[in-house]
């Protein structure tokens, strides 16, 4: 095999490698449906708001949500007890509790100030119009301050606009309706009539 052939092969190889990386980036940057949460705290919600209240909807088996839980932990650490947080894990009808109580559940549960709940058949998610695991809403005084994801990509930890927005709102809750893309698994089946569509 001569040098030219080797060079061609090497070039193809680099091209394929770089192409693969780009494809992977594209996938990670593909956001799910962020929903359109109500501007006021739903009255029929089973969760009672108490001061600044953060709710994260999560799919108990979504691998991307681990990064969201991690970001939540940073937010909680940063809020220094000012924030009341709830993580609602989807529990479809007919599923046993152990389907819900995964390591994600336990991770969320381990974050101080975070309350973990099973969202029976996605009822709360529907009340808050949440369609993607990792979707986070922040209410203060019954008013919606933030809605969206708190990661920069699928399963991607680190600095991201959502986390920065939440932290900023906690410091100065002046703005309303901040929105960021949500990266995670869908909370409802693709063909479900209850599926939250991205606006």
């Amino acid at each position, binding site marked *: 095999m001569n040098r030219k052939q080797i060079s061609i092969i090497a070039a193809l190889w680099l091209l394929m490698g770089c192409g693969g990386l780009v494809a992977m980036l594209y996938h990670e940057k593909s956001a799910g449906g962020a929903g359109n949460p109500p501007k006021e705290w739903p009255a029929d919600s089973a969760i009672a708001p108490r001061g600044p209240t953060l709710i994260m909807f999560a799919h108990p088996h979504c691998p991307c949500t681990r990064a969201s839980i991690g970001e939540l932990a940073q937010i909680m650490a940063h809020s220094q007890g000012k924030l009341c947080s709830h993580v609602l894990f989807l529990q479809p009808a007919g599923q046993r509790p152990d389907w819900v109580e995964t390591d994600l559940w336990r991770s969320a549960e381990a974050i101080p100030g975070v309350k973990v709940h099973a969202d029976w058949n996605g009822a709360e998610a529907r009340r808050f119009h949440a369609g993607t695991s990792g979707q986070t809403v922040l209410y203060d005084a019954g008013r919606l301050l933030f809605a969206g994801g708190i990661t920069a990509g699928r399963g991607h930890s*680190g600095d991201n606009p959502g986390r920065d927005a939440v932290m900023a709102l906690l410091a100065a809750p002046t703005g309303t309706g901040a929105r960021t893309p949500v990266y995670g698994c869908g909370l409802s089946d693709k063909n479900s009539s209850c599926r939250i569509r991205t606006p």
Partner: protein
Amino acid sequence: MKEAMHSTLENKDAARAAAIFQEDCQTIIRRTDRLLMGLMIFQWIAGIIAAIWISPRAWEGMGSSLHPHIWAALFLGGIISSLPVALAALWPGRTITRHALAVGQMLMSALLVHVSGGRIETHFHIFGSLAFLSFYRDWRVLITASIVVALDHFARGALWPESVYGVLSAPMWRAFEHAGWVVFEDVFLIISIGQSVREMRNIAERQAALESSNTRIEQTVAERTAELTSEIEERRLAEESLKSSEQRFRQLAETIQDVFWMTSPDCRKALYLSPGYEQIWGRTCASAYEQPETWFNTIVPEDRAGVVAGFEKGARGEAFEMEFRIMRPEGMVRSILSRGFPVYDEAGTLQSVVGLSTDVTGRKQMEAKLLESGKLETVGRLAGGIAHDFNTILTAIIGHAELIRQAVPESGPEFHSAEQIGKSAARAAQLTQQLLAFSRKQMLRSEILDLNMTVTEAEVMLRRLLGDSIEVRVAINAKRPWAKADAGQIQQMLVQLALNARDAMPRGGRLTLETGEITLDETYAAARSDVVAGEFVMIAISDTGGGITDEVKPHLFEPFFTTKKQGEGTGLGLAMCYGIAKQIGGHIGVYSELGRGTTFKIFLPCVSAAPSEAAAELAPIVKTAPVRGTESILLVEDDDGLRDLAGIVLQKLGYTVHSAANGIEAISIAENHAEIALLLTDVVMPQMSGKELADRLRSSQPSMKVLFTSAYTEDAIIHHGILDPGIVFLHKPYTPALLSRKTRETLDGAQAPRRT
């Protein structure tokens, strides 16, 4: 020349060092290729496993599908790993391979950093990978890897900083910072690589020098080994030669019956004695080593002074020879001849005295016997000469006495005197006969005898001869009792020995005659000068008389030696027996013990054939033929008296006699006479022998017959006293009657003409 060789060696070492360095580099590169190939495969598999473990599926409510991360790990990781792994597997050691591995490994780092969301910890994968790549000890690989890292950081830092730094936005200087840290590590790694390469070069140079040194050492060792092998071989050959020499000396010393000996320079201490010492001395060598005085004490006292003198000469460094006698433990005396020689070292110092001692007992005994035998031989020759002349004289005396007796009346005193002359001459003739027998010059009529029969026939005669006071016993033991001998002489011996036995038993006793067979071997014969080895028939005559003393034994067979009183014995009896036995080819021995008796043993050579009947019948015939005749006889005799007597006797009988004093005269006479019927000739004559005369006359007288006469003869007619076939012989002294009868017998006999 030396410098040139040194330079050549250095060049060789440098080339070898370069080769070793390249070889080591290749080894390291190939090994690192394999390690990195394994690492990439591991990372790929680990990525797949991690993806499966962390994000197995992507969910949509209750529905799920295989997570895209798994596909990414499988295919993207596979793509990144494929080319480097393939090159490492197919072309290990090549430059393109390690650079592809470097690029692949950096892409893996980039992927890891990206997947981790730009976690700073995962950047250590980059540094670890660079360290790993430094295993190649090729700084170019680090440069390639660092370029890939830098490009990745610049590109992703600009496009998607969260992917590489984990932050939403990153300034450009962060890319430079990261690249700077990579360069920072590269600097140290390159320094380390440089040091490692130098060390490798040094090691290669040392290795080359060591190999070169080893080669030289091996060459030196090989040369030295060859020299040692040669030396060892030479030493081995020398040792073998020494061993062989020692073995030969040991075989010689241990086999020979003589004694090799070695003493200290002062001759006072025995250093070595060969095993022959124990055989000759009858004592152990150890006793001589430990107590030299015991050896000295074995020497007969009379000979010790000579031995001391001999060893004193040896101690002075002179060669010496000495003869002495020793006493063996059982009392036997042995004669020893010993020669000693000094041994000096290179400095001329006397080291030892060596020598050889020989047992000469047998030789001395043999010398004594030879001396005795020679003496008997001399005496026998003297006796034979005397007997010859006596016989010639006695023939004339007897003949003339007979003529006188025939010529005078029987009543007259002349007749009586003539008769007394005849009787005295006859006794003298008997004495000369015995002398001839001793000197082995009497005539034999040998025939094959059955000695059993001879002894049996002699028994009757001996009983009569010995009288009643002596008991005669006969023991016939010989199964093959045949010997070639003269029967009359055997009887003569038996009678002589029986008479001696009778004289040894004046008060009576027992005489035993015994026959047997015996084989005398070479050893027995070698010890006795008068004995030859072979099969013998033995006749033993034993008496129970007083025996013979040791002083008498050596002289028993000497003529005229007698222990009897003067007038009772002639001293010729045993001498005659000795002579007869020797003439037959045998010998006679004596065994005697004082007070118990004596045994004489006659040994005669055994023959395998039994006596024939014809021979037995012919032997004793004595014809009483007419004694007169008219034929012409040529008489040749150098003794005038005897020639005259014979002529008178024959003429009286009617023959025509032509006398001659010698052969020349006889030939002359024969030429003048037409026919000579008989040649009567003496055998021993001056000028021409009787045998030669007869041969010459036969050409002109083919019908002539020959009658030889002699006192004894040793010529061609008679060999060792035995007549040739066809020869007629008349022994002196003869009587006129015997002459007349023998003449007639010869003339009437069918004597074949002889030519020799």
